[in-house]
């Protein structure tokens, strides 16, 4: 259920304003209690949304990370990293 945890925390950035503030000030500490794999935690802290997308995280939900500018992301950076993911015509990662 690990990818679920990533999807869920993305929505919590929208819903839970205290969590949003914690993710903005100290994301490593905010993520520490969550049940994430090492790869997921590393990708989140690096703002590596491309890797997370390839792992199966929901893009619509990850967009909240850019909207609220957590994990070093903003609209521009998020857009560049996500658009770098190679996908087929229905948006599934390839290669």
């Amino acid at each position, binding site marked *: 259920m690990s990818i679920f945890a990533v999807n869920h925390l993305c929505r919590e950035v929208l819903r839970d304003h205290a969590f949003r503030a914690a993710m903005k000030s100290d994301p490593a500490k905010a993520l520490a209690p969550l049940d994430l794999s090492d790869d997921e935690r590393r990708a989140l802290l690096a703002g590596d949304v491309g890797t997370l997308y390839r792992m199966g995280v929901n893009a619509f939900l990850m967009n909240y990370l850019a909207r609220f500018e957590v994990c070093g992301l903003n609209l521009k950076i998020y857009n560049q990293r996500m658009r770098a993911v190679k996908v087929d015509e*229905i948006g599934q990662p390839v290669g």
Partner: protein
Amino acid sequence: MAQIVAGFGVPHTPIFPHFVKRDGPDCEIAKLFGAQKAQLAAERPDLIVMFDTDHLNTFFLDSLPIFAVGIDRSFKAPNDEPQDVPNYIVPSMLDVAAHIRSAVVAAGFDVGMTQNYSVDHSVIVPLHFLTPDMTVPVIPFFISGHVPPLPSAQRCHALGRAVAHAIESWPVALRVVIMGSGSFSLEVGGPRMAPGRSDGVPDPDWAMRVVNYLEEQKIDRLIAEATQHQLLKAGNVGGELLNWIAMLGAIGDRKPDYVAPQMQNGHAYGVWRWN
């Protein structure tokens, strides 16, 4: 007896309320919604039934129905902070919503429900423009259009017909408007965004083809071509077209008064009236 008096297809882009506040009543968005608002008011609706795709806010990946109806006396919105949308309490009709659910389940559609619920921009943004005083009751009917597997277009069209039969079997006289909310081609936050934006229109040809099929009343063709593959090819929220298809099923595949495309957003504003 309740009767269906009109159908509307609406976009729900969450930033539109901000754009209209910023750009004023003469901007394109304000004019397109304003035209629909006048058409809707002329129908004097007692109730709006809106087919909508929740954006993982009313429901989530821990519990995600393919179809569900909101059953309560009112609901709150928005629950996802779209800019310049006030907090609303929207009246609903609990008894009618429960009746619709019972009737469509009896007709073979296994429809879930939610009570004591809130909704996101996909319901409230069109209402913000069309019924801003929030005096017209609204029943949201949720269709899962974002997270595959998607229900088939054929199934959603048949669901719309079943909802129409349910409404028409309600014994109290009500003027009911059916709405379908959503885009025809749109990618939000995914790899097919346009450069520098948070969204994009991956399949503008499909969006235009949808508009043409709606205008030409080629609904069978639309349903045949709106496969899951095509809907996903149209973007990660391309399945929102299913809400329009359910609306068409409910109103009976009529010719529209107009379908006004806004192709830079991959969506349109549609009105079907016949009285």
